[in-house]
């Protein structure tokens, strides 16, 4: 195995090793626990950046007309031979960028949580296991392995909300876990169906992509798989778990859930449902696009009515994540590229906003709009970051939101799926809604008279500044210079698009 392949495995092994190492540190030694967590997250970021650069140098490209994704840094060994499941791990551009996103958000989340004072050990162990499962999900190209990694994230999420959440955390934890389990179960049904089809041998994703599945099978398997993943990816009407879940979760978990974890759902829709079942995708694209448009508008309108900062951002996430699905359902190059870029962009944006909200809550002990005002005067750093993220959220050119939403809408209008241009036209309203709820929200808490239950207020300390800067850098880079990323994504999407464009 090459060095890069080892490093790729290190992305998911390192957090697990860190979790085991943390288990041996005494629970009273909060200092060491926090230090080790930051170091682990930092090393992961370094590895992810190094691998991203190596990937860009390598630029694996699938041959013209091939439906087999070209992967880099591959590790392929036997895992469960009696089930024909392999340990097959690698990256293409989509996976690589999502791994990078994950590493940055984990680092930012860890930095933002360093102010924690009780049950520190459990918190950081769970966070590391969560990170490991997410890294694994993005790099696994064997369906069973992908499922294992995905499920690995279920228990830490459950425990983190139950132990460290706010509000009705027991209820939110149980609701989130049961909903996510429902999604997993639908995915499992689809996966078991896929591997037991005639011609399918084993769980290897690339091998399965070469099989032309029976149309009847595709017509039931695609919606089952898509719905299962879409539940995780926050598509209306399966988004019901997310507002309560995000609002009740501790800051780092909200950042992680909304920023990365939900992207596993959209990623699964792309990588498993659309990639393996193209005819099914063509048949079912319109209904799911309608759901996506409905979700975008629903999220937007709901965000307008929220009185709690976290619910405001949670519904904004519902709205933005719905756009990802709109892009995927366009089934063309522009739409899908936009969808993947929206995954990254929204990840950065929502993580930034949740991070900032968390910092505001730590200082003012309230999340209600009516209790806050004029915070720009006392917390200018946080305020500016919040404005940048807010503008990115509403799609200001120059920031990542525009760079990702433009291709989605373009793809929607030029899509060959019948009816999609109309659906896209209707969903354009989301831009107006985003502007309204973002500007209102940000204005209300940042400007006007200084109002807060707790005074005086301090601005961000260095570690919080680092966290916010890391995420904002992502927003800026993606927005100001999306070209190299877009090119890589295009070449990664080509094998996926090929059978779709054939129809």
């Amino acid at each position, binding site marked *: 195995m090459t060095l890069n392949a080892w490093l790729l495995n290190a992305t998911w092994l390192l957090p697990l090793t860190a979790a085991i190492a943390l288990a041996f540190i005494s629970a009273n030694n909060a200092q060491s626990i926090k230090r080790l967590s930051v170091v682990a997250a930092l090393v992961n970021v370094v590895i992810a950046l190094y691998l991203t650069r190596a990937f860009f140098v390598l630029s694996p490209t699938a041959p013209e007309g091939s439906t087999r994704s070209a992967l880099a840094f591959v590790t392929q060994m036997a895992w*469960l031979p009696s089930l024909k499941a392999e340990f097959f791990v690698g990256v293409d551009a989509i996976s690589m960028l999502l791994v990078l996103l994950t590493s940055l958000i984990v680092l930012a989340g860890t930095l933002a949580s360093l102010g924690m004072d009780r049950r520190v050990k459990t918190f950081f162990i769970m966070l590391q296991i969560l990170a490991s499962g997410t890294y694994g999900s993005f790099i696994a190209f064997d369906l069973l392995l992908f499922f294992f990694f995905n499920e690995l994230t279920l228990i830490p999420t459950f425990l983190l909300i139950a132990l460290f959440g706010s509000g009705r955390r027991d209820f939110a934890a149980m609701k989130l876990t049961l909903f996510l389990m429902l999604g997993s179960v639908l995915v499992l049904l689809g996966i078991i169906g896929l591997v037991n089809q005639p011609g399918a041998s084993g769980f290897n994703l690339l091998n399965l992509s070469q099989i032309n599945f029976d149309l009847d099978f595709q017509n039931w398997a695609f919606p089952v798989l898509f719905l299962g993943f879409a539940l995780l990816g926050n598509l209306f009407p399966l988004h019901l778990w997310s507002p309560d879940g995000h609002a009740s979760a501790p800051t780092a978990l909200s950042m992680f859930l909304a920023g990365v974890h939900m992207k596993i759902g959209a990623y699964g829709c792309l990588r498993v449902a659309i990639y393996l079942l193209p005819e099914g995708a063509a048949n079912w694209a319109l209904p799911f696009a309608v759901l996506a448009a409905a979700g975008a508008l629903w999220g937007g309108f709901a965000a307008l009515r929220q009185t709690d900062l976290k619910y405001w951002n949670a519904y904004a996430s519902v709205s933005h994540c719905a756009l990802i699905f709109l892009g995927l359902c366009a089934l063309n190059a522009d739409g899908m590229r936009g969808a993947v870029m929206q995954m990254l962009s929204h990840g950065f944006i929502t993580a930034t906003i949740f991070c900032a909200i968390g910092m505001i809550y730590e200082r003012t002990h309230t999340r209600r709009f009516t209790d806050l005002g004029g915070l720009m005067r006392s917390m200018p750093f946080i305020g500016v970051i919040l404005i940048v993220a807010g503008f990115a959220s509403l799609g200001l050119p120059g920031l990542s939101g525009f760079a990702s939403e433009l291709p989605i809408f373009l793809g929607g209008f030029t899509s060959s799926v019948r009816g999609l241009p109309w659906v896209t036209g209707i969903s354009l309203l989301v831009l107006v809604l985003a502007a309204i709820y973002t500007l209102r929200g940000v204005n209300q808490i940042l400007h006007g008279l200084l109002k807060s239950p707790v005074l005086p207020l301090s601005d961000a300390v260095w570690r919080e500044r680092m966290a916010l800067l890391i995420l904002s850098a992502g927003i800026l880079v993606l927005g100001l210079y999306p070209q190299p990323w877009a090119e890589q994504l295009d070449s990664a999407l080509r094998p996926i698009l090929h059978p779709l464009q054939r129809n």
Partner: protein
Amino acid sequence: MPASAALPLLPLAPDLILGLTLLAVIVVDALFAKHLAIRMPYALPALAMGGTFISLLLLWVSPAQGHDYANYAVTPMGRWWRMAFTLLLLGVQGLDLFSRPATKPRWREGAFQALLLAATLGMFAMVSSREWLTFFIGLELATLPLLALTAFHSQRSMSVEAAIKLTVFAGLAMAFSAFGISLLYGSTGSLSFIAFSQQVHATSVVPAETYRLLGAFFLAGSLLFKVAGFPFQMWAPDVYQGAPFPVMAYLAVASKAAALAAMALLFFGPLAYTFKTLQSAWLILALASQIIGNLGAIRQTRFSRFIAYSSIAQAGFFLLAFLAPTRLGQEALIFNVLAYGFSTLALFFFWNGALKSQREVSGGDTEGDQDDLHGLGGLVSRRPDLALGLAVTLFSLAGIPPLMGFMGKFLLFNGLAKNQHYAVLALALANTVVALYYYAKWVLVAYTAKPDVPAISECSVTAESKRGAEFWIGVGLMAALLGLGALPFLLNALRAIPR
């Protein structure tokens, strides 16, 4: 050495060792009971465990092929079932050691150990049978000791009541199996399985076919009772509640394993002709068991009844194996029995630990309710290792990867898909979501609820200073549940069983 002259005893050695251990325990108990009770109270359990362990070792090193002794056969699958039985017996005996009150020796210790060994011997006989009478004797031997074991706390009326209930149901089940076997014998004129299968293929005269189907139905009913599946699951909650703690564990894991082994032996063997006819029956029975078990477990707050309902639901999943292709179904059953057995025994182990820690903090009060699951409240602040163990075992039972319980369920689901039972698969998956609720609920209680006894919340984490045998056994159990689920060892071994 002429191979055909002497009867090869080596494949039979595990059974013989178990039988000799049983006799040894009885003899030692008869001769030295009073002496041992005072001086060496752990002598008899040690003897029993030692014999079981040797039997397990012999099974491990015995050749995979086994040997056919005409009416008794050690088959490759039978060897794995025996290993499962001895492992579960060892687990129950170990649990017994950890859960017995340290102060006074058990009344009739020898009888207790001997009954456990006898039941296991009966299970050995059941999976080795090559004809109906051996099977019936094995089934009886596997069930009757449980009646006495359930009544072991003869001073408590609940124990005796549970035993009487079990006797009534067990008697009914015995009658069913006797009816069934006599019908099957009558329809073919032979007791041996091989002759039976030959007759089934040869003749298809209508009265004989009807009798064969009826016989299979009766036998299925008898074994459904033993596995506590719908429609014979009513006895489980009451009997589990009344039985002594280690007996409850044995009923929950080993007795079920025996029933599943017997069903696998029969319905993948001589009774395989019923496959098509009984498919819809297995389907309905499996789904009904899952639903009833789930509904019952959701509202349960008593540990024993919770285990009972959870095991009814699990039995529902195991019954799905009979809808799968033969080989996959057998492998899935053995894997599931091991996964469920490990997980449940681990659950008993950690629950026992939780009870002990509760007793320690409340000042040795043993009169309190030993059965209330709410006693788990705040466990994470008293014993975080136990809370983690509980979380791992409960999630393994719920079927969350990468734990062993998931792999077991996955094998069952894969088997269903191979025979195109997608609707059943969807319903079974829906039931797993419901099951997750009641398993996750108690993890939540262990991690977040306020502890019952106020003094506990001031207690600092003392688990780090108590790294005794219990701690390391707990770690070992968690590692086993994680390792055997995510790594291929057990799966490869099962796939390597010769046909």
